[in-house]
């Protein structure tokens, strides 16, 4: 390679090195601008003493203001938990009550079965048929009561055989007697349903918790209210049947009074005819 002059040599060398120098300069600038390491340890920085004092204060505050109340809260909650577990909801008492539920359920089931014992005793075909319907505990048997009743107690009086007031009285009495018998079948069926409901509530109680037992209690109370209402309807029917009986006795007296008046009037007429 030939250089015409030293200047020519320098120009050539510069053009060759220019880009490399720029790159090196850029890298040097990067190193200068790069962040330096923080000096926060060994008390070399004047800020460290202040930070240390501040952190100590915070630590003290955490111990006194936060940790102590938290410890106190924990203690109170522990006491409350112990109180609830030992006094309010002791597991032993809860298990004992559950056990009693199972025991009582067995006793009450036996008791329900008592009412399933046969109480029939009619011997003739017609009374047997009526008795079977009456003791069936089956609401479907209510439809048969009227037919079986007529087979035992006879049909209504024919128009030619008794005056209308007597026929009315007899018809009303038959109607009320049949209604009372039907109500008896209904009551037996309802009582069976109530016994089954009570048994189921007892069964659920064996697996209940103190929080769910009041729900069952409310359900049992509702059933009790319902049962009371059914009992009232039975008592009302009882009052009706007794009232009809009383009314019959009154009507009998009225018929007798009417008959005596008719007899007196007829006798008076007969005596008048004889005297004439």
């Amino acid at each position, binding site marked *: 390679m030939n250089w015409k002059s030293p200047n020519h040599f320098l120009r050539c060398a510069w053009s060759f090195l220019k880009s490399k120098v720029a790159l090196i300069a850029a890298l040097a600038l990067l190193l200068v601008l790069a962040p330096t390491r923080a000096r926060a340890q060994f008390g070399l920085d004047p800020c460290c003493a202040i930070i240390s004092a501040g952190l100590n204060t915070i630590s003290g505050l955490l111990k006194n203001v936060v940790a102590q109340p938290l410890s106190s809260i924990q203690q109170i909650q522990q006491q*409350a938990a112990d109180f609830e577990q030992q006094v309010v909801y002791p597991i032993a008492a809860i298990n004992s009550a559950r056990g*009693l539920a199972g025991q009582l359920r067995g006793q009450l089931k036996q008791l329900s079965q008592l009412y399933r014992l046969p109480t029939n005793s009619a011997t003739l075909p017609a*009374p047997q048929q009526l008795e079977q319907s009456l003791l069936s505990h089956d609401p479907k048997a209510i439809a048969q009561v009227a037919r079986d009743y007529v087979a035992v107690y006879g049909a209504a009086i024919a128009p030619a055989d008794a005056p209308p007031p007597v026929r009315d009285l007899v018809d009303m009495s038959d109607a009320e007697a049949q209604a009372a018998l039907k109500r008896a079948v209904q009551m037996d069926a309802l009582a069976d349903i109530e016994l089954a409901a009570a048994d189921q509530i007892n069964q659920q109680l064996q697996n209940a918790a103190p929080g769910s037992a009041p729900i069952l209690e409310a359900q049992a109370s509702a059933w009790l209210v319902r049962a009371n209402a059914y009992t009232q309807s039975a008592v009302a029917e009882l009052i009706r049947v007794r009232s009809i009986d009383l009314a019959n006795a009154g009507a009998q007296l009225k018929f007798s009074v009417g008959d005596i008046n008719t007899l007196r009037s007829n006798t008076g007429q007969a005596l008048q005819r004889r005297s004439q």
Partner: protein
Amino acid sequence: MTNKLSMKVALTLCLIFLLLLAPVAARAGVTDIISLLTTITGTLNNSIGQVLDGIQTVNTTIRNFEQQAVWPITLIDETRAEVAQVRAQFSNLAAQVHSIEMSSATLVNPKQLETRLRSRQAGDLTQISASYTQVYQSLPPPEQATPAQRNMMDMDDALALGALKTAIISDQASEQMLTVADGLETQAGLSAPGSASFLTTQAQAAALQNQAMLQKLLAAELRQEAAKLAHSNTLRKQSADATRNLRNGMQQILTR
């Protein structure tokens, strides 16, 4: 020429990036640090500390209220003792009153029937019919009464016997129910506030069963009353039949 230009552009871009990405020197002074620490301390003292004090106060109030007002142990123990006292005072007394003898029949047959009726043993049900027949007689044979009369007598007997049997069953059920009540009362004396609801529910269920048994008794009473009404009504029907027969007989005699 192009190479030179691209080199310049690359260098310029590189420098711009370096300037952008270069970290800025932090300028946190002592005042700033003190301010930050003061803020933290204030937060701990005022916000957190006061709230925790409040929670502590509420918890203490709730605990005291529950232990002193809602479930005071002394009162719970006193109530348990009272249950035992009431049980000792009244349950035995009631049991004694309940066991007073009611029998009063003097003759052999009524005495036997009465004993069975008051036995409170449903196992005796089959023997009731025999004792009943000895006192109230058996059905007359067909030649001694009309079919209608025999039907009615048989039905009367059946319903009377049915009601008597139901009464015996009810007596036994009452005894068992009294045992249940006794068990509930005993358990009530040992229960805790949290287990008492179990006993209340059981008592409610037992009361429901009691009501069902009362309904069965009422059903028997209804049958009885209905039979009485039907019986007297049938006598009226038979009277009307007899009157018709008499009238027909008189007419036949008069037409001869």
